[in-house]
């Protein structure tokens, strides 16, 4: 089985580099053509997401809209922190074809496998 992480039997690595970031919840789904990530980033508008791929690592950053209402805060559960999560990618992923979009606070990232890495059915003669 192909691993999204380079270390077998270990979860994708979550790094919290400072208190300015929180790790968003993620669902990862694999099919024959690649992986799909759904990352929860409520409060992040379109255009405030950074998806970068470097040294085999996929970094997802979502920045919240800094819009403190001019009102007295009575009660709070949400966080000020931006979202950040880093994944070690399966080397078979074709990084030139990574696609990402955000809709109502859910960032969807599609990680297609390189053509050569796709399973191939060999006909038995």
């Amino acid at each position, binding site marked *: 089985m192909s691993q*999204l992480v380079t270390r077998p039997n270990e*979860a*994708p690595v979550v790094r919290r580099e400072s208190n300015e970031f929180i790790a968003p*919840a*993620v*669902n*990862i*789904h*694999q*099919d*024959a053509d690649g*992986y799909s990530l*759904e990352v*929860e*980033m*409520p*409060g*992040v*508008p*379109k255009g405030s997401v950074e998806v970068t791929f470097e040294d085999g690592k996929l970094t997802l950053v979502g920045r919240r*809209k800094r819009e403190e*209402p*001019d*009102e*007295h*805060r*009575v*009660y*709070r*559960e*949400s*966080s000020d922190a931006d979202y950040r999560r880093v994944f070690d990618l399966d080397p078979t992923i074709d990084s030139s074809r990574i696609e990402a979009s955000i*809709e*109502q*606070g*859910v960032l969807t990232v599609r990680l297609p496998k390189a053509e050569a890495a796709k399973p191939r059915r060999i006909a038995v003669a």
Partner: protein
Amino acid sequence: MRLISYKPQLSPWSSFDRLSSLRDLLDSAFELAGTFSPTVDRGWAPALDIYEDDDKVTVKVEAAGMKKEDFDVSLHDDNLTVSGERRSEKKEGEGESFRSERFFGRFSRTITLPAAVKADEVKATYEDGVLTVILPKAEEAKPRKIEVSVN
């Protein structure tokens, strides 16, 4: 003001799920001692913020990935209930799930508003995964400035 305690989501790491019954037991012990009365009975609980100024009360609920028609916002006396259902768009039987940290299904949060509001002027909008409910205050709940007269 009476507020509802926030039960954070269950641990996002599914391997901890087997600990959840222990966690619930511990939580229930603390609830007995707590000053808040919880209304999150089951499912997940999106984070909720309350703001207030002279004219209105604003409630924000962080619930990413919903459809606006799947929210239900209701007002009963001075209690505001925001509930809804988040549905998974993934179809079953296609590929395999690698990691499941997101919560799906129903949620319900109820708060007691800090002031009386005009029920027929409440507005709710859903943007960037955050539901914002704006509740204009009733006239009697607004602060009034009293002129000091000199005889």
